[in-house]
């Protein structure tokens, strides 16, 4: 560990976080497809099998239910497994284990048994991929009681949040914004990770609140820069935790700004944006100067990649939503 911040991409920050977690707790194990010698298709686990051996970094047979199901058994045996699902679209074969088993076991055991399993999933589009490689499945998990769902947006957050997720006694779905795996930033490797479930105000402002998460955070920052040139001070909130949602940070912000735009790549209906809009109108209806606007992917399957640039919420669509909020 060094006190000097170093610059690294998100993929390396995750690698460093996993390495730290494994060094500090012998019970931490990694399971996934191609995570050993290959280091994962995104190289997040690069070198970890070499460092910790193949009993702790397990190259799994090709079976996602097997990965999550055996992680449950390992957790019952006292281990802290971290699963890697190779791509967002491949998590669905494991959905039974996640929703009927992993999420419910604490409740079924009257709180006696914790299943501290982390499931890492690269998510989101914008990389020109073929089908099933660009999806945003967060709402399925956020809708499931018993799971925590989090997503980092920067190398520092990635380093902090993966360590906190491994330490968490509840199952954590850990969504990694794959198009930003190679986005660099400063990482303070001596930082103690804060609470997983807190949102963070990454740019203060008083005219409008913009909530985003994961891969859309860099876009949201750009949006705020453009708005600043036009004299509008946008407050940008990195949601970080999609379940539970940190209402307080959002509500206190919107009380000040009176306007809220929520952006995510996932489809619009019954998504995180809808939930946040509902909570805000429920709690602080009279603070709102304009309706809450959602800027999202559409209620279609993820499109062929030649269409994704316009389909995804980008700078222009979010700026347009902000204009609509101000002109209400």
């Amino acid at each position, binding site marked *: 560990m060094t006190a000097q911040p170093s610059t690294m991409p998100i993929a390396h920050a995750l690698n460093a976080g996993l390495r730290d977690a494994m060094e500090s707790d012998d019970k931490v194990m990694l399971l996934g497809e191609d995570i050993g010698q290959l280091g994962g298709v995104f190289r997040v686990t690069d070198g970890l099998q070499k460092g910790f051996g193949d009993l702790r970094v397990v190259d799994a047979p090709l079976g996602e239910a097997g990965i999550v199901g*055996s992680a449950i058994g390992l957790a019952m045996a006292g281990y802290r497994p971290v699963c890697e699902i190779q791509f967002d679209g491949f998590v669905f074969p494991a959905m039974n284990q996640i929703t009927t088993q992993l999420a419910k076991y604490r409740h079924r055991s*009257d709180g006696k048994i914790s299943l501290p399993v982390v499931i890492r999933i690269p998510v989101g589009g914008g990389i020109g991929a073929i089908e099933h490689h660009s999806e945003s499945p967060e709402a399925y998990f956020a809708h499931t009681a018993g799971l925590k769902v989090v997503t980092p947006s920067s190398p520092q957050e990635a380093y902090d949040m993966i360590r906190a997720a491994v330490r968490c006694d509840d199952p954590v779905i850990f969504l990694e914004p794959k198009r930003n795996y190679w986005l660099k930033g400063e990482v303070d490797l001596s930082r103690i990770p804060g609470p997983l479930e807190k949102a963070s105000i990454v740019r203060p402002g008083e005219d409008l609140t913009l909530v985003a998460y994961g891969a859309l955070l860099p876009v949201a920052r750009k949006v705020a820069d453009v708005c600043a040139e036009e004299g509008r001070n946008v407050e940008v909130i990195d949601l970080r935790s999609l379940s539970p949602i940190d209402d307080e940070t959002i509500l206190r912000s919107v009380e000040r700004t009176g306007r809220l735009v929520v952006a995510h790549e996932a489809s619009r209906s019954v998504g995180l944006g809808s939930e946040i809009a509902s909570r805000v109108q429920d709690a602080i209806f009279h603070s709102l100067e304009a309706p809450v606007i959602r800027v999202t992917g559409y209620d279609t399957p993820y499109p062929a990649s030649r269409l994704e640039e316009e389909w995804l919420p980008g700078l222009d669509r979010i700026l347009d939503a902000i204009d609509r909020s101000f002109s209400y």
Partner: protein
Amino acid sequence: MTSQPLSLLTQDGTYQSQMALPLDPGSIDCAQLLRDMIMTRRVDSEAIALQRQGELGLWPSLLGQEAAQVGAAASLFPRDVVFPTYREHGVAWCRGVDPVNLLGLFRGTTMGGWDPTENNFNLYTLVIGAQTLHAVGYAMGIVRDGDVGTGDPERDRAVLVFLGDGALSEGETNEAFVWAAAQNLPVVFFCQNNQWAISAPYSVQSRVAVAQRAQGFGFKGIRVDGNDVLACLSATREAMAAARSGNGPTLIEAFTYRRNPHTTSDDDGRYRSGAENDVWESLDPIERLKNYLVGSNKIDQDFLSKVGAEEQELAEKLRAGCRALPNPAPDHPFRNTYAEMPKELEDQMIEHLSFVETGA
């Protein structure tokens, strides 16, 4: 194509040794096996009666499967770990789970009912086949703990997971076989082939016998007479010993018959004949062991009377215990969903408790 299931006891109680089923019957407390089977059957019949009286919402009966369960369970050390389906009342009994606690899930007072770590007997699993993967993961943990193949009889341990014939069609079961074989894990798959997955006969699941399926995955499969408690005990004991010593998994097929409907909600008259049931009733596993023990003077009428009195006591305890099972507190689901309750959930709990208390 399908071999006859291996057995040690004929229905009239004659013991016939088998190369593939090593056992010294003199070393086995057969009277205890009989007692466990009788008590198990009583748990089952009392639970059915309680369901008929409206005390339970549902009950999955194990009638006819007592030998398979008691035989398999008798092979275990306390440190071995069991993953059941939802019909392993006999295994639960042998593991020392209070049978009153088996009723809670079906009465609606709990989603579990016992502490899985207390008797190394996990909670019932209702989603077919899901537990096979938990068993595989637990076995991976045993390997990492270094508790396999040490040769120390106090240390080596293994996992016994139960499944039914229907579970063989589930993808997760097949993944479990792949993992167990590839990693040579200390796990034994004990399949009670009771021939019916609700209304689906085994012919809907597969064209080969259960035990044959293991070969394709690369481990041993053995087919035993599931109504022969000694055959089930021998096969499971051999398989568990192999697993503990590092020789990997085994699939045991205990060929038997579910003599009652799938659950108390099922109507098996719609899909199978009573004649089939009559055949299997004539192969009753308790009668078979009793014939052997009485015929060889290993038990007498005194023993049977004593077990009868115990049974009666158990029945009374079950009836009273069932009615006394406490309802969970209204905040139970809220408090046991997460290790630390999220603020939103706490708000919902307060709202709910206020509604429960005041109706508003």
